């Protein structure tokens, strides 16, 4: 199965895991992640993927089993959403500390309460500080490609960290799109067999998960911080190699008509396609507006983002998660913190958009551009499209 095919984006991700020849999949069903793991169970059941599918009894155990499997040297995949990611949170923090290169796809869904099924980024932001590399995909092709790239980046001996990939729930996971399915020989060239940097091996025993007293904890945490920052060069290297083999170019930060833009909108994930259409329409009306999309969220792509914002007078940051009790969303906070000591002096505004599955429209972006060009000294981020 290779070439140009129409398929559900969830299925495309599962096919990428098959092409990566994953060894262990540990997962627990949760809407809207289910289609990914159902397809993986099917591939294993049909003998199309030689892996062990562990039908764990909770997401906490999904991540625990994934940690165990990766520590024992298996190429390991899991996927979850929303409350499931919240339940596995304790284990999410352990994986990077043990340096186990798990790949996790998160079908982004709003967090309770109130309970909701719709898409936003409130689930994945709980992973923000944990030490995982974190990517956001915009479309089906990117979801497939980044799943493959995630294994290569995670397992690179220079990195040896877990990687998560966000797909907007329903609005990306449940869409049928045409994708270019790579063939196995190409994938094998891109993704070498997994050679673990740390491994539980009876012939060379190590102890993992040791206790760090105060005389070494801070050093251990700083080592993790440095490892995550330096992982960015491996990301860029892997993207270059991906382009060489597959002819598709990815960067940590993408820009769209931003070169001469007075107002730059920053977004993540699948709403960026809507944003690009809106940018085109606004350009037709003579507005100098552009888009910057963060594909890489952790480590935060500082240099790339500053370069993309260099000429902007107004920066409008879209957030899809509330930090309750704080005036900014996580992306807004991050951009303000980065820009304030950079020498750049754009007017930064922050907007909450598309919470809990609320549709994100071109009109929303037109409104955001107007506000970004008009509002000064915004203290708290503005809710867009919320009835008061």
């Amino acid at each position, binding site marked *: 199965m290779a070439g140009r095919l129409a398929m559900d984006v969830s299925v495309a991700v599962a096919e990428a895991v098959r092409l990566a020849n994953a*060894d*262990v999949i*540990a997962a627990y069903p949760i809407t809207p992640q289910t289609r990914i793991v159902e397809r993986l169970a099917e591939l294993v059941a049909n003998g199309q993927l*030689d*892996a*062990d599918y*562990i*039908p*764990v*009894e*909770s997401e*906490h*155990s999904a991540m*625990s*089993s*994934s*940690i*165990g*499997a*990766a*520590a*024992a*040297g*298996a190429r*390991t995949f899991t996927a979850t959403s929303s409350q499931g990611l919240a339940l596995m949170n*304790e*284990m999410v923090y*352990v994986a990077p500390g*043990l340096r186990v290169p798990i790949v996790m796809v998160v079908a982004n869904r709003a967090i309770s309460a109130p309970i909701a099924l719709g898409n936003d980024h409130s689930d994945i932001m709980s992973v923000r500080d944990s030490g995982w590399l974190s990517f956001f995909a915009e479309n089906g092709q990117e979801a497939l490609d980044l799943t493959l790239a995630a294994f290569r980046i995670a397992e690179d001996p220079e990195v040896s960290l877990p990687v998560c990939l966000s797909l907007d729930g329903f609005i990306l996971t449940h869409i049928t799109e045409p994708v270019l399915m790579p063939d196995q020989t190409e994938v094998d060239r891109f993704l070498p*067999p997994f050679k673990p940097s740390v491994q*539980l*091996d*009876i*012939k060379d*025993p*190590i*102890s*993992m*998960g*040791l*206790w*760090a*007293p105060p005389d*070494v904890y801070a050093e*251990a945490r700083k080592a993790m911080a440095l490892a995550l920052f330096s992982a960015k060069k491996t990301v860029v290297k892997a993207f270059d190699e991906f382009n060489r083999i597959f002819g598709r170019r990815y960067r940590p930060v993408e820009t769209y008509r931003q070169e001469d833009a007075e107002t730059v909108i920053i977004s993540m994930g699948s709403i960026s396609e809507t944003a690009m259409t809106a940018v085109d329409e606004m350009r037709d009306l003579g507005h100098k507006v552009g888009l910057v999309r963060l594909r890489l969220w952790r480590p935060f792509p500082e240099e790339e983002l500053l370069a993309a914002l260099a000429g902007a007078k107004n920066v409008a940051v879209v957030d899809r998660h509330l930090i309750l009790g704080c005036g900014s969303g996580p992306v807004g906070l991050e951009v303000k913190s980065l820009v304030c000591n950079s020498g750049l002096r754009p007017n930064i505004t922050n907007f909450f958009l598309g919470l809990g599955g609320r549709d994100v429209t071109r009109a929303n972006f037109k409104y955001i551009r107007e506000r970004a060009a008009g509002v000064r000294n915004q203290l708290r981020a503005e809710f867009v499209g919320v009835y008061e």
Partner: protein
Amino acid sequence: MRAFEAPFERVTNRNFPKGPEVLAPGHGACQGCGEALALRLVLKALGTEFIAVSATGCMEVCTSRFPNTSWQMPWIHVAFENAAAVASGVEAATRVLKRKGRGHDQRIPVVALAGDGGTADIGLQALSGALERFHENFVYVCLDNEAYMNTGFQRSSATPFRASTTTSPVGACSKGQHTWKKNMPAIAAAHGIPYVATASPAFHLDLMNKIRRAAAVEGPAYVHVFSPCPTGWLMKPELAVESARLAVSSRIFPLYEVLDGSYRINRPAPNPTPLADYFRAQGRYRHLTEDDVAFIARRVNSDYERLVDLAERRPVS
């Protein structure tokens, strides 16, 4: 293959594995720690060609202060409640890697180790999941010292009736723990796994052979090991082994096995030693009256009779 036919080399006093300690000296367990002794015997029975997974707890923290480790085999600790889930992942990985030609060409037992809190309370869900999924090379060992000793002797669901702990203290309105000890081996057996056993460090060969059998059976095995805690039980450290022996002879912790659903009592106690002899050395039971002891003895005897009944009706053959 039936559990009682699983091939393993029996440990005897003659062929006892007297090589280097696989739980190396230098760990920080308390003086006279019955759990450290139990763990040492468990690991000695297994050697080094297996993978150990520890839950957070006394045995984890006292053996793993960076950069030191007491563990001579590959070992991983992840958290408190998930030793069974981590071990599930390790077990799956070792089997898949062997199948795909990237692992070692041998069966690698994966042994999860947890205390009573990590098993009967916070880890019960993960354990139940792992037993139900029927992992092929999976052994779970509960080292039961009957309370949360690592955090300072708080009660767990495995704390026995009337024992005083820091969260089931004796007071004007309390005679200590007011619930009966959760029957973990019965819960494990209810999963229909091939092998369940109770063991005691006072019966070291019995314990080690049960561990070897657990590692040899195809499918999950559960071994519940009595682990006296002199510090938490308010007992002289030199009495750790003796208290473990009295627990068996008084019937409060009987030694038995469940092989493919059939029962066998390993150290029958047709004429039990007085429970008072077992309680006497332990400060956690200091407040008990004769009536209290008699009340507990009725329950202990009835539980024991039920085991005898099971062993008679469903004998291992």
